[in-house]
């Protein structure tokens, strides 16, 4: 890469973290080591770098001493990277001219057993941070314009409900359905758990509502052929009949749903014996029957439901539990008793998973006299036919694996949900990943449950994994809100940590474009030759393209050769730690004052000012977890800010009161 202008007025802040760092790392020597590095003009120790008072002091330094970059050596960047980037911004320097050095999680705590070596390491880490920041570049967030429109793929309950929400929030919506009719699986269902409304009526009323909203355009018998562009400006080619439409959208929601598991030939006698049918087939039978339940011209007087068919296979492909089928089977059995008289039901299950409110259905089924027998995966029931009857052999776990034989008129295979057989078509076009179970994958199941790794492409409903209707609609609606948060502003800001090409060095060999999973690299004509160019909006900054370039013409912002090799040089420099200067006394110069304390301490202190409290009482009042309170209280105790004041009535917890802190300001 080209020679960069190095930073020359760097400020370095080395945090005590109230003893968490300074008990093991000699922070005073760190300050002096940093001061002697090239380009450093300010080097300070601070009690708590994240405290408001220190943030203000940093801003004063930056402005007063005309600093051009800052380093904070403290806790993990996962905690405070953004805090200090904001400090930089507020002080008027570019937030990317800031480097956080982790001398707590990756130094003082990890090496609390060897404090002297911890100091040697901290010096290396801090020097590396100074070198990195010296080569750092000012970066601007990437602004892309956005179209106030969304494409929703799949008009099941998930897609329809999300389309309505998106339209009501002010988006133009294009709803794409591959079938002739809308509603997905729900449109074929009669009475549903738990509300007892019919599936047909729910699907019908959603369609009515969609027809009334002019900003939703519904395409049926339509398919997505191609998607280009990126967040804010997708171009979606949709084929309906012989026509291909080009739609413009800011974001895309995939709500393509699931397929019911289709048993293999001979699996529990399926498509071998006429009386063996799947759960969806059975639901159709119930809905289409009159007063009596008749299958194949036979009146059905007994039914065996075999659970977990195709699911929870420890050795097979579908390892997951389909979570909806237990409830669906039990609910179906209730529907049978409601509609037809004198039908005996046997449930051959592995575990019953009628979680949450659905448990009442299980209870009702037991009250109805349904018989529950439990089998193990290793010894599944065996179905055969004898005369007019189906015979099922089962080893019942509830009666010490006693072998039993049941005779029934019908066997219902309780099949679960699997990914759509054509799910790869959509994931191929949109480049969204699927998990081991082949359902589409979110970035993080707990923290980012409807986003995919592709900016602007969201997933909702049962295409993510087995879900009942309310769960499907919940995820689809949260995706709708997420999409609206993006499209509602005319421009969208993206992090600028992406690949850049050195056009002079690039010889367009195409290797970078070949490895990029996101199609972010294209040809461009520059200096009279063809070079590689990176699409700012689609590049993820993963860096895969960088090592494959034979000309070393690509790097990722913030991870340039100069920055990384500079860090390595920083680690490599020789460090002399003098023995006698041990860890600095608590509070450094002049003891600790209220305004230097972290937010949590101030909240604890404010609370203790009124009266002494126990740890559980503090946890409750401040709505923080007890471990966090204990940890902070113990550190405050160490610095004589609080003291124990007798036990509570149960003799279990100490009360704590303030010690050297009289007046608590906020």
């Amino acid at each position, binding site marked *: 890469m080209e020679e960069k202008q190095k930073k020359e007025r760097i400020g370095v802040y080395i945090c005590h973290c109230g003893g968490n760092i300074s008990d093991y790392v000699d922070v005073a020597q760190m300050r002096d080591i940093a001061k002697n590095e090239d380009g450093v003009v300010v080097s300070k120790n601070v009690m708590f770098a994240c405290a408001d008072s220190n943030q203000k002091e940093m801003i004063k330094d930056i402005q007063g001493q005309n600093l051009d970059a800052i380093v904070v050596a403290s806790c*993990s*960047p*996962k905690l405070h990277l953004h805090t200090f980037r904001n400090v930089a911004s507020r002080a008027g320097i570019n937030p990317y001219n800031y480097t956080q050095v*982790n001398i*707590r*999680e*990756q*130094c003082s*705590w*990890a*090496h*609390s*057993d*060897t404090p002297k*070596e*911890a100091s*040697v*390491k901290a010096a*290396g*880490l801090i020097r*590396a941070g100074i070198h990195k920041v010296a080569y750092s570049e000012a970066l601007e967030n990437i602004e892309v314009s956005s179209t106030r429109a969304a494409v929703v793929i799949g008009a099941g309950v998930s897609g329809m409900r999300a389309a309505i929400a998106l339209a009501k929030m002010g988006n133009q919506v294009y709803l794409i359905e591959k079938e002739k009719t809308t509603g997905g699986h729900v449109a074929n269902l009669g009475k549903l758990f738990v509300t007892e409304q019919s599936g047909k009526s729910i699907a019908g009323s959603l369609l009515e509502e969609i027809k009334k909203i002019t900003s939703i355009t519904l395409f049926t018998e339509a398919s997505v052929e191609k998607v280009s562009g990126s967040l804010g400006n997708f171009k979606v080619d949709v084929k309906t009949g012989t026509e291909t439409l080009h739609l413009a959208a800011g974001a895309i929601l995939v709500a393509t749903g699931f397929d019911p598991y289709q048993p293999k030939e001979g699996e529990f006698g399926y498509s071998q014996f006429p009386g063996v049918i799947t759960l969806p087939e059975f639901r159709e039978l119930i809905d289409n029957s009159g007063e009596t339940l008749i299958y194949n011209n036979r009146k059905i007087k007994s039914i065996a439901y075999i659970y977990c068919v195709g699911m929870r296979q420890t050795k097979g492909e579908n390892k997951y539990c389909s979570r909806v089928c237990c409830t669906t089977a039990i609910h179906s059995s209730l529907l049978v008793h409601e509609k037809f008289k004198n039908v005996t039901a046997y449930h051959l299950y592995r575990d019953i998973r009628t979680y949450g409110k659905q448990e009442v259905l299980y209870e009702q089924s037991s009250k109805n006299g349904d018989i529950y027998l439990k089998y193990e995966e290793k010894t599944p029931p065996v179905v055969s036919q004898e005369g007019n009857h189906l015979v099922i052999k089962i080893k019942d776990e509830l009666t010490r694996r006693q072998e039993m034989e049941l005779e029934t008129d019908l066997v219902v295979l309780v099949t679960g949900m699997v990914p759509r057989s054509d799910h790869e078509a959509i994931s191929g076009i949109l480049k969204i*990943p699927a998990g081991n179970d082949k359902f589409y994958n979110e*970035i993080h199941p707990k923290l980012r449950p409807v986003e995919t*790794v592709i900016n602007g492409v969201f997933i909702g409903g049962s295409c993510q994994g087995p879900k009942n209707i309310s769960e499907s609609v919940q995820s689809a609606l949260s995706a709708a809100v997420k999409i609206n948060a993006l499209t509602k502003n005319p421009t969208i800001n993206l992090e600028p*940590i992406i690949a850049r090409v050195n056009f002079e060095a690039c010889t367009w060999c195409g290797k970078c474009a070949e*490895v990029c*999973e996101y199609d972010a690299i294209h040809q461009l004509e520059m200096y009279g030759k063809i070079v590689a160019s990176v699409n700012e909006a689609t590049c*993820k*900054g*993963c*860096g*895969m393209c*960088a*090592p*494959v370039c034979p000309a*070393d013409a690509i790097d*990722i912002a913030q*991870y340039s*050769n100069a920055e*990384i*090799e500079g*860090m*390595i*040089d920083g*680690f*490599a420099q020789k460090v002399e730690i003098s023995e006698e200067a041990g860890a600095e006394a608590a509070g450094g110069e002049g003891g600790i004052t209220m305004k230097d304390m972290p937010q949590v301490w101030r909240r604890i202190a404010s609370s203790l000012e009124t009266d002494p409290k126990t740890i559980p009482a503090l946890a409750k009042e401040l709505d923080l977890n007890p471990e966090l309170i204990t940890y902070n209280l113990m550190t405050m105790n160490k610095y004589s800010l609080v003291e124990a004041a007798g036990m509570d009535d149960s003799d279990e917890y100490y009360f704590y009161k303030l010690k050297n802190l009289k007046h608590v300001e906020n």
Partner: protein
Amino acid sequence: MEKKHSRPKILVFSTDKISDPGIDQAGLRKIHYSPAVYVISLPCSSGIKPRWILHAFKQGFDGVFIAADGHECSYSPRCPELTNRIIEESQVLMKENGISPKRIRMAAICSVCAEPFASHMNNFTKILAELEE
């Protein structure tokens, strides 16, 4: 290698979202490992340039360890394959420079892999201390 450090110096490349939080966990839980371990965190292990690895050896590091995301990588299922390729290329460079290819290692470290990380470091430290080449 010119001189041997009393504790072998190890450079670790970790990843911002997965393995670096795992390494933080080790510290948080005060699970100790050699203090001569230095970590550089990147978006993805498939973005490590072999020249950085060579630079580390030339600057006196005794070993390089790649704490990769393995199949958890959120960028690409090809991450393990591409990271392997980087290691192979680095080993070629290392051999050309008289550095034993045994001085580079890789393992998948996840965001809660505190103990596995520490034990990888202890092992690698031991191996490097005994390594004659």
